[in-house]
């Protein structure tokens, strides 16, 4: 696979009717998504080390079948981040539903992880908080979505939103402080 043809070029070429470009695009998109996702799963601090192959697979399926316009890289990433967020939230909802069912369980693991207050529903709170934040600060909210759910760098986030990396930095700082307050308030 020639690496000199960037995803963006391929996206454009594909939009222009070049079907081969799609064939070349798919593995690259896959790789891109994979490394994106890996970033927050393979966190250096340990704790989240699962390979997100399956997750990314699903994200890609949703992207491909949603027939969105793959105008450019920005769109691609924006959509990827949004899809990722939706997957996480949908799953947490389903899981909450199952959990309430209650069952005879085998708990062989440490169930004493309560120090950090881990509950699966936190993602739902985060989702609601982010929605709320997007209403009052759409750009910073979008930056947070791209950065946290899409795993983009400051530079990439800036490119998508057409702002400088320094502005991304400021947006994120504000966004996470707001989100933190929303999540820890109760």
């Amino acid at each position, binding site marked *: 696979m020639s690496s000199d043809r960037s995803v963006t070029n391929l996206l454009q070429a594909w939009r222009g009717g070049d079907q081969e470009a799609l064939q070349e695009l798919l593995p690259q998109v896959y790789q891109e998504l994979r490394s994106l*996702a890996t970033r*927050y*799963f393979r*966190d250096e601090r*340990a*704790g*989240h*080390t*699962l*390979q*997100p*192959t*399956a*997750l990314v697979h*699903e994200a890609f399926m949703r992207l491909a079948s949603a027939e969105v316009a793959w105008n450019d890289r920005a769109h691609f990433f924006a959509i990827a981040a949004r899809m*990722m967020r939706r*997957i*996480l*939230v949908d*799953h*947490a909802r389903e*899981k909450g539903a199952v959990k309430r069912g209650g069952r*005879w*369980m*085998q*708990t*062989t*693991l*440490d*169930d*004493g*992880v*309560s*120090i*950090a207050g*881990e509950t*699966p529903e*936190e*993602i739902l709170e*985060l989702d609601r908080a982010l929605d*709320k934040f997007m*209403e*009052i*600060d759409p750009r910073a909210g979008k930056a*947070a979505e791209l950065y*946290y*759910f899409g795993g983009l760098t400051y530079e990439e986030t800036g490119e998508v939103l057409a702002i400088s990396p320094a502005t991304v930095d*400021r947006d994120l*700082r*504000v966004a*996470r*402080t*707001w*989100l*933190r*307050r929303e*999540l*820890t308030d109760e």
Partner: protein
Amino acid sequence: MSNPSPEQWKKIRAVFESAIELPVSERAAFLAGACGDDRELLAEVESLLAIYKDDDDLVNRVVGEAAQSVTESMRTGTMIGPYRILEPIGEGGMGSVYLAERQDETFEMRVALKVVRGGLDSRRLRERFHEERRILAALDHPNIARVLDGGSTPDDLPYFVMEYVEGERIDHYCERQELSVREKVVLFRTICDAVDHAHRQLIVHRDIKPANILVTRDGQAKLLDFGIAKLLEAGGGAGRGVTMTGMAPMTPDYASPEQIRGEPVTTATDVHALGIVLYELMTARHPFRGEVTTAREVEDALLESDPDSPSAVVSSRRSAPQIAGDLDNIILKALAKEPTRRYPSAAELSADLERYLLGHPVAARPSTFLYRAGKFVRRNAIGVSIAGLVAATILTASVISTAAYLRAERSLVEAKLQRDRLEDVNDFLAAMFEAASPKKTQSPETITARELLDAGAERVEEELADRPDIAATIQAEIGRRYFDLSLFDKAEELQRAAVAKFRAIDGISSPEGAKALIYLAGTLIDLDRLDEAEPLLRECAEISSGYEGDQYVYQIESSMRLAEIQKIRGENAEAAERYEKALVALSHEPVASSPEFKTWRSSVPSDYGLLLERMGRYEEAEAMMRRAIEIATRESGEEHSTVGSHCTSLAFILGRAGKHEERVRFASRALAIQEKALGEDQIEVAFARQNLADALVATGEFDEAEDLYAKVHASYKSAYGDRHHHVGTLLNNVANSLLGREKPGRALPKFREAAAIYADAFGPDHQYTAIANHNVSRSLHALGKLAEAEESCRANLATRRKLSRTGTHPDVARSLILLGTILRDQGDEGDEVEAEKHFREALRIAENELSEGHPLRMQAAELLQGH
């Protein structure tokens, strides 16, 4: 103002951003100026500043955990190794647990599969698991959930497979069932027994806590995760300097002071954790977690403060008086800060609890120092008199064993001896763990079984110099563990030392002495040093001929080992006689129904069946093997691995008798049983698979066979590496399949490799090496390279003559027949004459050693007639 408008937010944000650029001390003044009268603005900015921290931790964590949860749930329906994931059943800081089932057409086995996360080095973990798996497999106890398997997921995370236990946490169970104090103690003691069983296998749990103890619907407690904590530490050490607590946010609630301090983990560590669990069961409170909540505070309490007496904190007025006194003392003794002040073993904790239940005085005392000092003196006093007792007992046993009153007295003495030994063995095991502590060894993160054994081996001489009987018992056991780890040199060294000690104190004819002889002989047999093993076994057979009851097992074992040697040497008639005798012995009570002899009841007919096959008595062999299957099925259930092994053997016999279709049927059944009973990665499964492949070769299903061979090869390689003798056997059989398809050119290099592997493993003068070399000659013959074939066959014939003491092993006949055939094909007159001579000798051997219908015998006869 929790919902500012976008306009209000712009202001809030601007003030906030300016403020965080300032030093904290200047912010208040700045805010006062910037917000003026706008109190809502001020409040908003202040609340943001209050929680402002310039890091991403919280959001990253929430997203990360959610993503992980998705990934984990997506495993449902996927395969991990041979396991299909059915559903997630638990989640925690260390990873996820799934209900899974083994993929198999005929059977369904449900297991708990635990995927571990947290930056572990899965390759190292795998290696370590491999090293320790045999030891973990030895953990066969009704109150321990067995660790069945381990490996790594497709995305390279380590996983463990355990027996699936459907149950409820022990603390929840006790609460829901409203168990009384005594009922709780009874239940808890079963856990102590399980822990003690593991300690005797040199396995420390390290992570005992209520969440790891489940009670099944029928009230049986099961301890989970044995051996896992240590393996995890092994996987985490790779240059990252992380400990388990560093990898995952884990509460130290069940840690011992020595674990927190990073000191040696010993059997006493598990005793401490048991103490915490018992405390909680009795009081529904954690001994160190009173008002404090953070991990740090619990750690401090564990190190510094003494817990309140359980009876003082229990809320139930009914329980308090039952707990006060003895039970308080027992629990607090288990919770002593200093490991040496706790019970030295779980067995002693259990014994003290039993004394409590029976109303006897317990060993735990508020003032443990004085108590221990007193005990020390008492123990040594007993020690002095023991040597005399041993000698006297043996004398009594052999001279006047019929006198009933003496026998009664003897059993009393023995029981006492036994108890005392047990205690000393326990003390020694505890000391071994301490000796092999991370601080004293080079690799800081973990202790391997090997290091543990080395430490024990080193100390046993020195520390038990005054107790040679106990030292010898322990040395023999350590030797046995070395043997389990395939460290034969060390095994032999320790076992020899044990035997020498027993001889020196005149204790070789005690059951322990007999056991030491058998262990040593077993090691020597595996090293193919049969001549050295034989006299030891004869001695043991002699000693144990007077044993009664369960100790008669040493008689059976030594005799069967001798039969094994005779079988290897081709002394078939003598071996057969031993088996016949053993069958008779096993059919009489109490041996016929004692659990001690369970293994032998099916293995003797099975081994005898295989001997009969070698003698060409196929009908009898088949009948004998069916008998073995029937017995094993009755005693262990039709899905037990033993039944699988016997099915494998029956398949083999059927093959030799030419019943190939039936052979395939039994080989398939054997494989199915082993896969279900043992799990994919167990080597026995690979054996069964190889057997099925061999069977398929015979029915001409070569493609299917070769697929199986490839799998087997992969298993062997990962289990043993490239040069193990099992790989040799496999190559030999694969090549045999090729030879059967008339592809001698492809078969030849494989036979050669097999021969080279055998020569490496066993030496050039070994029967296996000779078999592979024989096949090399066959291939050369089939390729028409007659001169080369002749040369290699002659060399091999010489080896086989040397191997067979009497020169009459059937293998010698095989070589003679092949040599004769090669010579005849060369067609020279002199060769013809020599060939006939060889055929004649082969027939003579066959007539003596093999039954009439044996193919080898028939072949020799035919060849001779053809002349």
